[in-house]
């Protein structure tokens, strides 16, 4: 199957560069994880929706610095896209080169280019505003994943729970129990950074975690806490009747970690660096498997560290 043929009427017409007709001249600057992301080319209605979505993360408008990441929003014609109701927003094609990454999904096209600084562009047609906004948010997440990766970190699908000044990271695919264990931990008085998506940083002091503040039930504004914390241990979650802690063999640990690094894990030009980074991660913090029930017994197990 060729890139985009499931989603585009004429896949060969995927934009070759980040250019096109903007929706308007509105900009919204967002401060996230030490970076500034700037949506450009928004209509007034789109800009209002973005500001409402990101709330206090929005910054006063100033001239974008060279270090800001530009996210240019362009118009696309509705008939550029194949309308297939089986396509979900999360289903997409991707294509990689050393200097660019391209995605096509239901009613969107986007690309990230390194020129050498990261510039990104997103094309959407005239569609429901909430759907557009969901695409904007998803694309920002993709951009952050690459930005953080280029900075030496990882955007990691995980829940982060803070206690005694350190963080425990719980991870696994959707349905593994990240939200459940976050709520259980929260109910026990522990702080939750984010129950869905967190950023892992590799520092001389060890692995540090900070939340991605616009995702997850407990991660968004009004829930969860902020800050950067040293990671104590990481646990691949499984649900079961009895709490059990298992040691993971190195290859299995790496595979389970790999499955929770979105976007970058499918990029052949970054795979070797990603594997190196995950191997380093597994030498810096314990990576274990935790089976847990819907009660608080798992916490005593984690603190005892007793593995089977």
């Amino acid at each position: 199957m060729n890139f985009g043929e499931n989603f585009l009427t004429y896949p060969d017409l995927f934009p070759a560069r980040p250019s096109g007709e903007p929706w308007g001249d509105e900009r919204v600057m967002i401060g996230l994880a030490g970076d500034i992301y700037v949506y450009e080319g928004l209509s007034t209605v789109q800009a209002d929706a973005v500001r409402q979505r990101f709330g206090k993360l929005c910054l006063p408008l100033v001239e974008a610095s060279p270090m800001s990441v530009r996210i240019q929003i362009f118009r696309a014609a509705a008939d550029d896209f194949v309308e297939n109701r089986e396509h979900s927003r999360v289903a997409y094609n991707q294509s990689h080169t050393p200097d660019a990454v391209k995605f096509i999904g239901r009613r969107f096209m986007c690309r990230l280019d390194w020129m050498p600084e990261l510039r990104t562009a997103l094309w959407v047609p005239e569609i429901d505003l909430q759907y557009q906004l969901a695409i904007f948010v998803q694309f920002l997440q993709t951009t952050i994943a690459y930005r953080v990766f280029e900075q030496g970190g990882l955007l990691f699908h995980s829940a982060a729970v803070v206690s005694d000044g350190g963080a425990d990271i719980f991870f696994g695919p959707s349905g593994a129990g990240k939200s459940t264990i976050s709520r259980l931990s929260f109910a026990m008085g522990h702080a939750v950074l984010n129950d869905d998506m967190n950023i892992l940083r590799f520092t001389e002091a060890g692995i540090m975690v900070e939340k991605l503040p616009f995702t997850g039930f407990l991660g968004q504004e009004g829930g969860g806490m902020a800050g950067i914390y040293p990671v104590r241990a990481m646990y691949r979650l499984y649900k079961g009747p009895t709490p059990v802690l298992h040691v993971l063999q190195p290859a299995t640990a790496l595979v389970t970690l790999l499955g929770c690094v979105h976007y970058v894990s499918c990029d052949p030009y970054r795979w070797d660096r990603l594997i190196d980074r995950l191997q380093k991660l597994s030498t810096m913090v314990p990576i274990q498997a935790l089976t847990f029930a819907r009660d608080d017994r798992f916490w005593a197990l984690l603190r005892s560290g007793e593995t089977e």
Partner: protein
Amino acid sequence: MIATDMILKRCVDTRYRNIGGEGVVVRQTAGEVLVLNEIGVRVLELLEATMPVSGLLDALDAEYEIDRPTLERDVLAYLQELVDAGVIEHAAV
């Protein structure tokens, strides 16, 4: 069906790393990740050198204490599994 005169190679979209004696294989097009055991790791290592399956069998025969018929049966079946899984493919010669 794998024959001993075939030449196999790792698929282009497949990346591989030896992690503590186990192999982590990623099929990037499909977004799949596999873990191979020690034999799987050795097979992929041997396939880095272009050789017919018979050469691969000779190499494994020298390394493992197993009778040749059993080795051939198990390895050919295993190679077929790797082909079916999209990890290796017939090399164009």
